[in-house]
């Protein structure tokens, strides 16, 4: 599977790139949001037990927003800079790459760049790619480029 094949896959194929426990959690989020992939991604990003303050951890990290992850996906798949060049090659060179492999490479590479564990990012990346619709990478990258140009 190439990155382009992955990008254009059905939601079912994309979700199957996640571990079983991640699929189960994502399915719960989709049930809670009426199948809205962007809202499900936002819930994953902001998940925290209500009325409870965590008694541990460091809070030095800035909050991560969905747009930031989309920007990194764009850098990865569109190759708009060299940040993920080596990781793109990894997928290209693996002729028998499965959807699990593509998700693992994407989430590990982007997570390494943002300082976030790949295990946390994988469901987000899959939900966001599904939310783009079944669109080719070229078409999506072109759309992103036009959007950025019009935003100035």
């Amino acid at each position: 599977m190439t990155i382009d094949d992955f990008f254009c896959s059905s939601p079912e194929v994309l979700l199957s790139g996640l571990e079983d426990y991640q699929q189960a959690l994502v399915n719960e989020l989709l049930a809670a949001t009426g199948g809205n992939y962007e809202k499900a991604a936002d819930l994953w990003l902001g998940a925290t037990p209500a009325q409870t303050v965590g008694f541990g951890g460091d809070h030095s990290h800035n909050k991560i927003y969905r747009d930031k992850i989309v920007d990194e996906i764009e850098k990865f798949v569109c190759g708009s800079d060299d940040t993920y060049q080596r990781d793109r090659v990894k997928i290209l060179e693996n002729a028998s790459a499965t959807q699990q492999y593509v998700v693992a490479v994407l989430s590990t590479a982007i997570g390494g760049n943002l300082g976030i564990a790949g295990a946390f990012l994988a469901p987000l990346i899959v939900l966001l790619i599904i939310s783009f619709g079944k669109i080719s990478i070229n078409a999506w990258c072109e759309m992103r480029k036009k959007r950025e140009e019009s935003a100035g």
Partner: protein
Amino acid sequence: MDTSSLNRIVFPIGRITPNGVSLLGTGFIANKEGLIVTASHVVNNDDNNLVVVLKESFANGHSGLNVYQDTSDLRIQYIKASILRIDPIHDLCILRIPNEVRTNIQIASTDAISVADDVCIAGYPHCNMGRMVLTYQETIVGAKILIESASIKTKHIVLNIQTRPGQSGSPVYSKSTSSLVAIIIGPYVPTNGGGGISLGGIDPMTLHQTTHAVSAEYLSALL
């Protein structure tokens, strides 16, 4: 409840910083080789420089929980850890360490206990302040509650005991069966109660005996 081996099961989780190891919370060895359980907010989705910390006195195997823990002895050893699986909805995380350690802990659920049942906790209160004292506590279950996270309701218990920062990720055992029933997440705070005030590093809103612990049943999917 056999407390003699808790020092070989329950550890502080930390992160290596330019100033040394900063302690973040508590974790414990799971029933699968090389896996450690903690709360996901303890590691904040970031496994850079993450470590499982061993007090040197415990690591040498000379002492258990019944000896005097020397609070001036700051010598530690640590093992690098990485995030294997993370579930932010139930605030749970599985770390992997390169050691062949495991326990035979039986993972149960808050379904297996009732209100007023006795439970035991082991953890490192105040470890975020640099204090590293493995502390055992007993209390009873005050209530069984559902807490919403990401629009999903999850099973928790209220422990009738005050806990402190550093105890997130602590195991909660049934006193009668010694099985793992829950994992400490943190104290109740009202959603719109203001909060965010810090007096000498302490949030007064957390000074009460209503501690939330998530059901251990959610671990099963992660292990």
